[in-house]
């Protein structure tokens, strides 16, 4: 069987999400770096894999997929019998709760996190400035979201229940940036259950292998 190919970059949050899932499922893969500085992700060869010109794209035999949150669901289903079990739960109801918290990550957690990373890391890398008002308003939004997480995680070890699932995995790249790169670690450390959850999931061997490569390039 041909190895899965992942086109992306190791410090890209969405690439890291897919690599973490491949590691959890113990699936071999080849990471094919895309030269973003040369604009290769906007050229026809890459656009034929991902017409949106974003990272990552995955090739599994004849199947090409983009959108990291869809890719990890495909991997969890295809490799159900190996690696970390029950990433999508083991019943229709459990899967529904996993999907729910995946959507929460997508629509409540990700937008303010993305704004913080853009303002604090990406803008300066591109020679621009950080808009502190945007930082403050998104830190506030994220705080409100994390208050809900604190309550949830006071009743449940992981987001979907008492087992590690895609819902937790989906959060890991931006949680990593929050704690390590944008100076907002207190958003996590000040919340007892959120902090315990982060310490637990970030110590998973499958994640640690990815985290060491998650360093933004210098200018």
């Amino acid at each position, binding site marked *: 069987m041909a190895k899965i190919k992942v086109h992306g970059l190791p410090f890209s949050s969405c690439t890291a999400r897919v690599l973490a899932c491949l590691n959890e499922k113990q699936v071999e893969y080849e990471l094919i770096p895309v030269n973003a500085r040369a604009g290769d992700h906007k050229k026809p060869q890459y656009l034929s894999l991902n*017409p*949106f010109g974003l990272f990552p794209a995955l090739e599994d035999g004849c*199947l090409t*997929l*983009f*959108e990291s*949150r*869809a*890719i990890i*669901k*495909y991997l969890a*289903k*295809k490799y159900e019998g190996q690696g970390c079990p029950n990433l999508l739960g083991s019943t*229709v*109801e459990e*899967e*529904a*709760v996993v*999907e*729910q918290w*995946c*959507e*929460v990550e*997508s*629509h*409540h957690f990700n937008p303010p996190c993305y704004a913080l990373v853009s303002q604090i890391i990406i803008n300066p890398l591109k020679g621009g400035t950080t808009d502190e008002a945007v930082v403050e308003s998104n830190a506030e939004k994220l705080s409100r*979201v994390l208050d*809900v997480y604190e*309550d*949830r995680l006071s009743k449940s070890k992981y987001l979907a229940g008492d087992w590690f699932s895609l819902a937790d995995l989906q959060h890991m790249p931006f949680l990593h940036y929050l704690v390590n790169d944008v100076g907002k670690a207190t958003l996590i450390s000040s919340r007892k259950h959120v902090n315990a959850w982060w310490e637990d999931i970030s110590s998973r061997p499958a994640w640690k292998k990815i985290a060491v490569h998650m360093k933004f390039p210098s200018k």
Partner: protein
Amino acid sequence: MATIKVHGHHLSTATSLVLCCLEEKQVDYELLVVDLAAGAHKKPQYLALNPFGVVPTIQDGDLTLFESRGILKYLAKKYKGQGTELYGNSLSEEALVEQWCEVEGQSYNSPASAILFQILFVPMRGGTTDEAVVEMNVEKLVKVLDIYEERLSKSKYLAGDFFSLADLQHLPTTHYLVTACGKGDLISSRKHVKAWWEDISCRPAWKKVSEKSS
């Protein structure tokens, strides 16, 4: 079996998504209207169901679920074999459905909703539409629709030659863009997007829901 309860509102695009899916799957349900104008969605009784204080939330027996796109997948899987199949028939078809659902959620929804917000909701609350914001989001949406045009020139629906959740997810927001925001040209100027829209917006399940949300 108890009827599914949907806590939501006719004017909410997210509620309409769930109602449309229930109609497609021919599942009985009861819509319990949440009085958004009175702030009912931010009060403790509703927050106990959905701690994010947004609509919709469903109750199916002991299971309570929020986030409309997650609810759609639950319904599509639970009621497989009944009504319209919405999730494909193989692992790779499911993956393509998920992919285009994510495209809607990540790339289409944000600019489309921003346009709706400026043109419909801001004036309703006594404010003025910010045309610069509308224009900026129209430009973003145009780039997405160009990709859809290319995709739909090769495939009748987004995930393949079958109607799926990926198409359904676009119905409420696109309906408002076309019928209430004067942005129908974004759809009608693209041959394959136009054909796709005319097809999916004529589905009986959608017509039933959209008549109530006009």
